């Protein structure tokens, strides 16, 4: 292979290039991307010298993608987040989304459902603190009947249910298992995703379990699924949460991988072999506004996770695959001139596709104002579908491979991310960083610096610090009727009236016992939760003994 650096033609072209720009060259300053990496105005073969470009898609370390032919066999999964009101409203929305063409691999159904905030915190609709929040920003899923209603009529073999939960992650899975059994199905048929993202509290300002128990609970869910629900995706590494809290793409990459490593450790601590569970860990990653930086981040991410999992002892390709769901960035959307956000979202979806991801949620243009309207939500999914069918973007796997700039940037992001990652690991890893607050401090500082830069006009945001407008856009925002709350409470009351109170009380007492046995390493928790769910114990009722045992921890 000829070395282009020494090729006579290249040297000639370079000399001519230098001459052509001589007049103004000293005025051109390198620009910085979001991660603070300096970017030149031109890249050449000289910049990729020493970088290994002899790789193929579908081959370790998967820089060029997980599958040998990219999206040729099947396009990415369209996994729009949705959910509001009771199951009735959410079911109607599910059916509407299916009618709109939302689907996963090979036409399978994928439902990426968000629970309402009270459910996420583990309180039921009838709890006084739930007031004003019931069914507002997610679906009410309190009882086994609610889960049954969501699953009804969908073929469990070809339908994927993702439950976006908080502290109620384990109770939610237990209720879903009990609901499947009620239908006469075996729980090993279930397909879907638990979030199991306790480590998000390192940056998201929310209370949760004590760190030690937070991690132990993650391990318990992983163990249960590995043994009983093999096709269930147990853990979502919520890098998007890091990004939304203010992380640069580089910080998101480094801290996210460290988080992933901490989940591998949690599974191993629960007694599992890496090859038995790591393949069911997945990532949710954000996409901000620097197109090439995001593509490079996704390519570097695959390569780094392949190396981390291999080092952890994984030998199966499935366990070395970084499977990625993209959530386009919410924090870069502006409440000012909201329709402008469609341009941002379009570009972000393009970056996700160029980055070769498995699944995409595209935000709606009005998300800085309220939950999406029917029109904005439809436009968001259509954005994906236009890319999928009209653009030709998915015809070729990893189409930016070989670009001097993209390969250089991929390598640069990887190198810098390893530095942050290794530093964190050497200080005790992600869990320690969570407990001692380093991760939060680093990301809060970035967020503050970014806002200062936006205020000073050093960081351009169209419609916010440039091209402002006083004209109001004609925009009808979506509202969830507060009557939903009454409906949800009545529904819960009717459900509770049908139960045997004695059975419920016994199940809760057993659960309380098991929580304390679990803390002593004498019992698993998930089986007791599933048993409680079978007896009609609700999401909120399960969380009470869990809260007693595992605490209420506010990260600093």
């Amino acid at each position, binding site marked *: 292979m000829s070395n282009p650096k020494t090729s006579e033609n290249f040297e000639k072209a370079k000399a001519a290039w230098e001459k052509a720009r001589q007049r103004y060259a000293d005025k051109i300053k390198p620009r910085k991307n979001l991660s603070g990496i300096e970017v030149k105005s031109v890249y050449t073969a000289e910049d990729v010298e020493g970088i290994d470009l002899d790789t193929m898609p579908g081959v370790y370390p998967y820089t060029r993608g997980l599958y040998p032919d990219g999206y040729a066999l099947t396009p990415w999964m369209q996994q729009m987040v949705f959910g509001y009101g009771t199951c009735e409203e959410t079911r109607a929305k599910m059916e509407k989304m299916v009618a709109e063409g939302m689907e996963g691999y090979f036409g399978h159904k994928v439902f990426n459902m968000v629970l309402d*905030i*009270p459910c*996420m*915190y583990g*309180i039921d609709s009838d709890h006084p*603190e*739930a*007031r*004003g*929040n019931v069914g*507002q*920003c997610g679906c009410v899923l309190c009882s086994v009947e609610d889960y049954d209603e969501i699953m009804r009529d969908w073929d469990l073999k070809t339908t994927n249910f993702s439950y976006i939960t*908080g502290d109620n992650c384990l109770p939610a899975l237990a209720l879903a298992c009990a609901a499947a059994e009620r239908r006469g199905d075996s729980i090993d048929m279930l397909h879907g995703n638990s979030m199991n993202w306790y480590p998000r509290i390192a940056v*998201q*300002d*929310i*209370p949760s379990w004590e760190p030690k128990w937070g991690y132990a609970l993650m391990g318990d869910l992983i163990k249960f699924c590995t043994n009983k629900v093999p096709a269930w995706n147990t853990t979502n590494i919520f890098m998007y949460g890091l990004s*939304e*809290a*203010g992380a640069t793409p580089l910080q998101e990459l480094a801290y996210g991988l460290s988080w992933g490593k901490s989940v591998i450790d949690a599974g191993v601590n629960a007694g599992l072999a890496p090859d038995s569970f790591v393949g069911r860990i997945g990532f949710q990653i954000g996409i901000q506004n620097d197109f090439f930086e995001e593509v490079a981040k996704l390519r570097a991410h695959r390569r780094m996770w392949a190396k981390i999992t291999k080092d952890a002892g994984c030998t199966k390709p499935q366990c070395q695959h970084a499977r990625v769901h993209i959530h386009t960035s919410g*924090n870069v959307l*502006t*409440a*000012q001139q909201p329709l402008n956000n469609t341009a941002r979202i379009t570009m972000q979806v393009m970056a996700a596709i160029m980055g070769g991801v498995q699944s995409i949620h595209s935000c709606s243009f009005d998300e*800085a*104002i*309220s939950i999406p309207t029917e029109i904005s939500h439809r436009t968001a999914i259509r954005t994906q579908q236009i890319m999928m069918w009209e653009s030709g973007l998915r015809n070729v796997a990893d189409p930016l491979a070989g670009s001097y700039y993209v390969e250089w940037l991929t390598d640069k992001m990887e190198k810098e991310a390893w530095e942050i990652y290794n530093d964190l690991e050497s200080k005790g890893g992600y869990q320690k960083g969570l407990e001692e607050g380093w991760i939060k401090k680093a990301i*809060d500082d970035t*967020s*503050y610096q970014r*806002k200062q830069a936006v*205020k000073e006009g050093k960081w351009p945001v169209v419609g*916010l610090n440039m091209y402002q407008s006083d004209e109001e856009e004609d925009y009808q*925002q979506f*509202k*969830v009727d507060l009557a939903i709350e009454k409906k949800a409470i009545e529904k819960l009351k009717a459900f509770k009236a049908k139960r045997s109170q004695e059975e419920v009380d016994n199940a809760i007492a057993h659960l309380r016992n098991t929580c304390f046995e679990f803390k002593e390493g004498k019992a698993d928790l998930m089986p007791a939760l599933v048993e409680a769910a079978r007896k009609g114990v609700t999401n909120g009722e399960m969380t009470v003994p869990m809260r007693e045992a595992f605490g209420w921890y*506010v990260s600093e």
Partner: protein
Amino acid sequence: MSEKTIKVLLAKKKIDVHGRGSKLIARELRDAGMDVIYFRFGTADDIVNAAVQEDVDVVALSIMTSGHNLLVEDLIPMLKEKGKADVMLIMGGVIPKSDFEGLKKLGVHEVFPPGLPGETVANYIRENVGKVGLS
């Protein structure tokens, strides 16, 4: 405004998510010389008690996930009852513009959309604190 440092209780309601905006505002109000008590995860009761205990001049509520009207309906009578009728009450976060008017009718002095410089909030506080109250 006098030399006295303005004391702000910046509260996030009990059940909410994503604290980026409120943390930024807390820092920016501090930059503007105010004394900020950053109070997370409070019910209306908790917020009122903190406001009384700390004897704040301003209660600023940050909202990400709805429930703002009900929170204010609970909060205002409780603040008045506990002798904080002279406090300034402002809100910010992901609150639809169409709700601004209703919140002001309930007694909220000002509502701020997301993405604003903290100085806008600081200036509003400086110009109006002590001059407004809960009617």
